[in-house]
């Protein structure tokens, strides 16, 4: 992923104006200040230059603040939970919330990357279903758990690759490409499975969902690991930087020499890979591979990304916000289940929360960027 631009020194005859290509920070141009001091100074300046506006707006506009807002919502939901259901605050219930958040959470990580990169992926739910079916056919299962996992990942990544190629080189808008993928992945999954649920007979795969480490389900660890890798990838690597750049202004990124099309493909492959991981998780949890898995997951994932503060137009967003968004939705579902409320009302509540969250974010952004 680091070979998009030239290795330092290829442009060798650069004018003296440019700093030496591979200079370590200490020897780079004028401010020969130790890097830490420099950063401290810049951060201080950044704080001084904080946008003016209402305190609320300022708080909500900062990346952390926006997440704090979601944390507050989550806390509020927990308070409601404790007040209305005795069983809410039990360890087993909290683990239930985390477990049910884990599958959609893994998918949301991939969707966050795609949306920050200026795209959209509607196909995630059914790509996951297809991967779960393909990985649990009698033939695949006969090769054992490693091949099953590999199969799920390959199917997910392959579907992502097709999405990416059609978007980057076929120049079809992501909405249409991934909608078509959603429909055909559903069809293919039904065709392979003959519309039947395929039972997972492999004990290793089945054990993933039942295994606990230190009392916490393995699924939650997988979720956490995907989030951690995703966070590092987004915030600490050139890949993440390029994702923000092509989402924020694809033309500027292209003219700065980034290979926008190749990166676009990589983003959809990444999203597909997340679907593959989620496919193994859901196959293990339900002990079936089925074409009915993942219905409407794409909307849940996109909703979580949006209330997490990521711009649907790309270029700005946080992974942590998306994950908090997933947790908010999962907690709401849990509250409704515990209180024996109908799912219809639950969906109404979700809709209202999406609108309120976006309203608050828009206002905060406006008041601070004035």
């Amino acid at each position, binding site marked *: 992923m680091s070979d998009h631009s030239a290795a330092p020194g290829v442009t060798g005859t*650069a004018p003296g104006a440019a700093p030496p290509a591979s200079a370590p920070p200490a020897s780079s141009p004028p401010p020969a200040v130790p890097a830490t001091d420099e950063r401290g100074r810049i951060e201080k300046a950044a704080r001084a230059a904080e946008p003016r506006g209402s305190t609320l707006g300022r708080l909500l506009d900062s990346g952390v603040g926006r997440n704090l807002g979601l944390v507050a919502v989550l806390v509020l939901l927990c308070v409601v939970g404790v007040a209305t259901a005795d069983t809410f605050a039990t360890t087993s219930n909290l683990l239930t919330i985390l477990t049910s958040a884990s599958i959609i959470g893994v998918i949301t990580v991939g969707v966050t990357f795609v949306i920050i990169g200026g795209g959209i992926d509607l196909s995630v739910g059914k790509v996951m279903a297809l991967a779960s079916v393909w990985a649990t056919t009698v033939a695949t299962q006969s090769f054992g758990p490693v091949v099953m996992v590999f199969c799920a990942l390959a199917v997910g990544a392959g579907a992502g690759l097709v999405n990416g190629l059609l978007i980057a080189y076929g120049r079809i808008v992501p909405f249409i490409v991934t909608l078509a993928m959603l429909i055909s992945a559903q069809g293919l999954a039904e065709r392979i499975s003959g519309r039947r649920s395929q039972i997972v007979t492999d004990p290793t795969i089945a054990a993933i969902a039942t295994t606990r480490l230190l009392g916490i389900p393995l699924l939650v660890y997988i979720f956490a690991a995907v989030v951690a890798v995703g966070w590092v990838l987004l915030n600490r690597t*050139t890949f993440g*930087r390029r994702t923000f*750049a092509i989402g924020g202004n694809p033309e500027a990124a292209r003219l700065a020499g980034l290979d926008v099309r190749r990166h676009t493909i990589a983003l959809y492959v990444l999203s597909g890979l997340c679907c593959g991981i989620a496919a193994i998780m859901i196959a293990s949890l339900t002990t079936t591979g089925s074409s009915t898995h993942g219905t409407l997951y794409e909307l849940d994932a996109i909703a979580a990304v949006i209330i997490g503060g990521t711009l649907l137009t790309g270029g700005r967003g946080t992974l942590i916000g998306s994950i908090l968004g997933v947790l908010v939705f999962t907690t709401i579902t849990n509250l409704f289940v515990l209180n024996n409320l109908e799912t219809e009302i639950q969906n109404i509540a979700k809709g209202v929360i999406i609108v309120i969250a976006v309203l608050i974010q828009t206002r905060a952004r406006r008041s601070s960027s004035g």
Partner: protein
Amino acid sequence: MTPLLTMRGIVKEFPGVRALDGVDLDVDAGEVHCLLGQNGAGKSTLIKVIAGAHRPDAGEVVLDGTPVSFGSPQAADGAGIATIHQELDLVPALSVAENVMLGHEPSRWGFTRPSDAEALTRALLLRLGHPEIPPRREVGRLSAAGQQVVSMARALARDARLIVMDEPSAVLDPEEVRNLFRVIRELTAEGVAVVYISHRLDEIREVGDRVTVLKDGRTVARDLPARTTPTAEVIRLMTGRSIEYVFPERAAADPAADVVLEVDGLARAGEFAGVSFTVRAGEVVGLAGLVGSGRSEILETVYGARRATAGTVRVRGAALRTGSVPAAVRAGMGLCPEERKSQGLLLHEPVYRNVSLPALARFARAGFMRQDAEIAAAGGVTAQLDVRPADGTRAVRTLSGGNQQKVVLARWLLRGCTVLLLDEPTRGVDVGARSEIYALVRRLAAEGVAVVLVSSEVPEVLGLADRVLVVREGRVVHEAPACDLDEARVLDLVMEGTAHV
């Protein structure tokens, strides 16, 4: 006879710029009044004042003997003033009739009456001499010339008495231009006044009645007869702008320096053809040409942002893969694009991330960013260029135009390039930052960078470049050392190349 439109002492200021500084203009009913002036002379601002898009800070506008003050384009529209812009403001997905009647649809009880609209449109198209355009055709499927006719029909539908045409011939072929002129003559015969803006002097001579020349936001000549005023006289009036920028001293380019950039027979269907030139290390080559002449397209094709249909680009002897920006950047090219905001910057990202964008890999180890090194290096370059405010974590969108341009330049300074392509590097840049950018370009050249500069401002090309290529209608029509050219000569070459002043 009182003029239809009289403007006296019009002043319009923008932050840091006095775009109009006392413009006078008289337009009679039934005449074609031509407006001439170089880029930046104030033509566009003046049109916007006429069309109600800008409110003048001082001065008087009298329409038909009554002082008016248009607060909005709708007000000007209501007073019978229509503007046909370079970029036509039609809705491509609607039909011809729907566009012509847009906002004024014939209706009864709130229901539109498409048959009435079509009948009215058909009558207008007939009056404009274009009965062949079907009122039901989708506008997006018409040719540029056809769309222009629709724009004019729309102006007539509003009973426009004054139609402003901003470079209407730029998108037309000669046959269509002749047709346009016929329509203009018919309109003026009916008493409609036309304000006609064009850089093509032959057109002005053919269709115009009187000429007003603007320079530095002032009227420098009015009431010139369009047909008989010699080209040399017109160019003399347009040149010699008083805002002089300080161009840095330049050392003569070393004629023995290595050729860095070789462009050979480069072409793009419908845009330009047969473009060949070379640039040596340390040389600044200027491309002079009008908007639409193909100069920016040439630059972007050299850079690989557009795919050439013929020809090759070589950097230090190695041919570049066509249509690949990454290949061009790897070979040591950098581009500062024409539209800074839409093509150059990540507006919401901090300055340092905009600067490091093409050089990300340099600040990464195994793909992981070393942000301290990145911020320090970017800060070093922006400090060199005196980008203000100096805080590199500020979002680029909060910076002024000049400082934003410096951020784009800083990007290539940081990455280091052997060929720097600059497209309108000083557009929307204040005077101070201009001089700094000029000094930077010369300094980079002195350090051995090969620079290609595109600019609409002739003095800028002459002041910065060692050698000038004049581009007209997609071809390089002249090439000469800058010292052998003067502003009037370049302007003449850019516009028509017949005056030999």
